[in-house]
């Protein structure tokens, strides 16, 4: 009887794995291209972190590529959010079962370069003499290290200020003049605050998610470095600078002042929580990525009019611009030249004007390709969503010099920043203490990273 049970179980398992047989078959089908007479079909896998509507749009782009030619087939596979996807990449590298093309977020850039598991796209640009000037210089600048472009920017965003024009009018403020500095934010927030009869706040003037990306952006606005060694770009950073060069202090003092004023809401670390509050009319201004624009407009619908403005300056004399967020596409080194070449073809397609126009219209990300602005789709989109113009203007007003830092331990450093800002806002430490504590964690992480990753 036991034998019967065991064999039944084995039978089930065997038949189950046979059911998935079609799955494993494709794995073997990836051909070794023979250089020479006939070009064989190449299959490449593409791992990404785009879910929801973004995933749907991305799949269309991939389908367009597959339909546009016969030699290469790209299989796009969702691997969770950016963090999960990167973790999976790390694990897969230990067993050499990873993808050919990887979408990795901005703060994973240093890690990807240091992993030595990638092929810089500069190699292909040089070989083909690809005209890189059609792509946005600011986006390229972020991913360029030592004059080499490592990855292809694909979905890039910048931080902007969202505000409720209707609420502005009601408070006697000019709906076409969003605040330009944090001080102006302070004054306007006071006017925009609304309470009900019981004294409960129904509308905050302003709210800022405790998201370290904004912290970094405000450093750039002030023209101050986040880390040493040229923000980790001249060579690997060894310490952070934000707690020493005054940039962090000015920012946190302002931040604390805003929240202490009582006119500013605090909805935690997740941008979507603050985003939801804005859409529900619970806060009249907030900071978010440009990529959220279309979903914000959908969520607000006809409730009020949405306006957008540049990321406010910290001091009125600030001359810095903004850096980018989002992710880029990397070509992984699987020791197969045919696949790498195929991946390069895929990347070129993904940043072509037509595809970028579709991507921009259906998401909220910038077109990476300047020529996309000439296409009807993009133009129509701008007519429909004039708010989007702000993001474009802000991008072009920033010089390529305003690019963010590169750190192998960015995720950890960010978490340390956020945790310490949280406790500062909760009154548990002063701004300088918060900065020093965050820096301590970041620095020890950097030290460990540099030691174990030569």
């Amino acid at each position, binding site marked *: 009887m036991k034998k019967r049970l065991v064999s039944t179980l084995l039978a089930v398992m065997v038949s189950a794995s046979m059911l998935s047989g079609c799955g494993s078959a494709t794995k073997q089908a990836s051909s070794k291209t023979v250089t020479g007479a006939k070009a064989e079909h190449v299959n490449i896998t593409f791992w990404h972190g785009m879910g929801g509507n973004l995933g749907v749009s991305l799949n269309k782009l991939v389908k367009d590529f597959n339909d546009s030619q016969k030699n290469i087939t790209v299989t796009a596979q969702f691997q969770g959010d950016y963090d*999960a996807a990167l973790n999976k990449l790390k694990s897969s590298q230990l067993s050499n079962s990873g993808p050919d093309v990887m979408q990795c977020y901005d703060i994973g850039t240093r890690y990807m370069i240091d992993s030595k598991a990638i092929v810089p796209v500069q190699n292909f640009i040089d070989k083909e003499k690809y005209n890189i000037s059609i792509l946005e210089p600011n986006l390229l600048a972020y991913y360029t290290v030592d004059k080499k472009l490592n990855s292809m920017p694909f979905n890039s965003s910048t931080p902007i200020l969202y505000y409720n024009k209707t609420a502005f009018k009601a408070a006697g403020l000019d709906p076409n003049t969003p605040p330009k500095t944090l001080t102006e934010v302070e004054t306007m927030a006071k006017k925009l605050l609304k309470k009900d009869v019981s004294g409960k706040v129904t509308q905050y003037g302003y709210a800022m998610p405790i998201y370290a990306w904004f912290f970094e952006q405000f450093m750039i606005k002030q023209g101050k470095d986040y880390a040493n060694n040229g923000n980790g770009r001249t060579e690997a950073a060894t310490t952070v600078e934000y707690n020493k060069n005054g940039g962090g202090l000015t920012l946190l003092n302002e931040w604390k002042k805003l929240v202490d004023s009582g006119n500013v809401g605090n909805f935690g670390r997740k941008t979507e929580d603050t985003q939801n509050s804005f859409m529900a009319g619970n806060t009249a201004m907030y900071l978010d990525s440009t990529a959220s624009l279309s979903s914000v407009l959908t969520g607000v619908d006809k409730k009020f009019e949405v306006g957008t403005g540049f990321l406010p300056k910290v001091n009125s004399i600030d001359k810095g611009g903004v850096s980018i967020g989002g992710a880029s596409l990397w070509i992984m080194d699987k020791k197969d030249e045919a696949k790498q070449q195929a991946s390069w073809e895929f990347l070129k397609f993904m940043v072509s004007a037509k595809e970028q126009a579709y991507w921009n219209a259906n998401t909220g990300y910038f077109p990476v390709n300047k020529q996309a602005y000439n296409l009807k789709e993009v133009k129509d989109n701008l007519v429909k969503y004039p708010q989007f113009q702000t993001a474009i203007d802000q991008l072009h007003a920033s010089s390529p010099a305003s690019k963010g830092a590169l750190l192998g331990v960015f995720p950890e450093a960010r978490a340390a920043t956020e945790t310490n800002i949280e406790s500062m806002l909760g009154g548990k430490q002063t701004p300088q203490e918060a900065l020093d504590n965050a820096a301590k964690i970041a620095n020890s992480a950097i030290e460990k990273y540099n030691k174990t990753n030569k």
Partner: protein
Amino acid sequence: MENKKSNIMLLIANLVVGLLIISPILYALSVTFMTTDQIHTMPPKFLPKNFFLGNYKDVIAAVPIFRFIFNSFLVATVVTIGQIITSCLSAYAFAFYEFKGKKILFIIMIATIMVPGEAIIISNYLTISSLNLLDTYTGLILPYLTSAMGIFMMRQYFLTVPIELSEASIIDGCTGLQFLTKILMPISKPIIGSLGIYMFLLTWNQYMWPLLITSKPEMRTVQIGISMLKSAEVQSFGMMLAGIIIIIIPSIFIFIIGQKQLIDGMTSGSVKG
């Protein structure tokens, strides 16, 4: 008369508490019929304006949710059967036998409950990968074919079964295995039923493991499907909740069937008999 009144009160108490417990689900259900602008209002609304089906349509278009349901179903069923078999076998050994090393073996088996999953998941990924079982049902199933919780639970229950039953069966000429399968397991139906349902749903709700070892969309399972409805910089509540509701329905269904067949199927007292 007393009895009838107290019965009605008891029933009402049951229903009220029940509604309280499922209220978050009911609320989520209600939200799935709202459009985005309805969801993002303050104060939040309990009921949608009308039955907006767009969220459900979006879910079905965005992810192959029915394939996921099939996959999860297959994996969960095999895992459940496997766990019941291995748990009963092991628990039977612990409850009805004396043997050398029994104490140690019990301890080290229960100790597996205390090993944090996150610590061993990468190693298991590498093992499955080296066996070439990535993106297969076997890979999804194999590590979970036994569970210390199951062993522990069955052992607790088996310990309440009188030894006389086993002795009587031996006199009757039953082998150990026959006693287990022909007598012990049938009278343990309620516990096996509970264990089965629990294990099924636990597997249904797995996220990290399927995420790690599957990459192809057609091999993925329902919880990954949910996460596919989230995106990095944009949120679509209505769609996410619609996806959640779609995959809760089969699990509740399984529970109802299992509950009726296995748990209610036993009248109490037969163990004492």
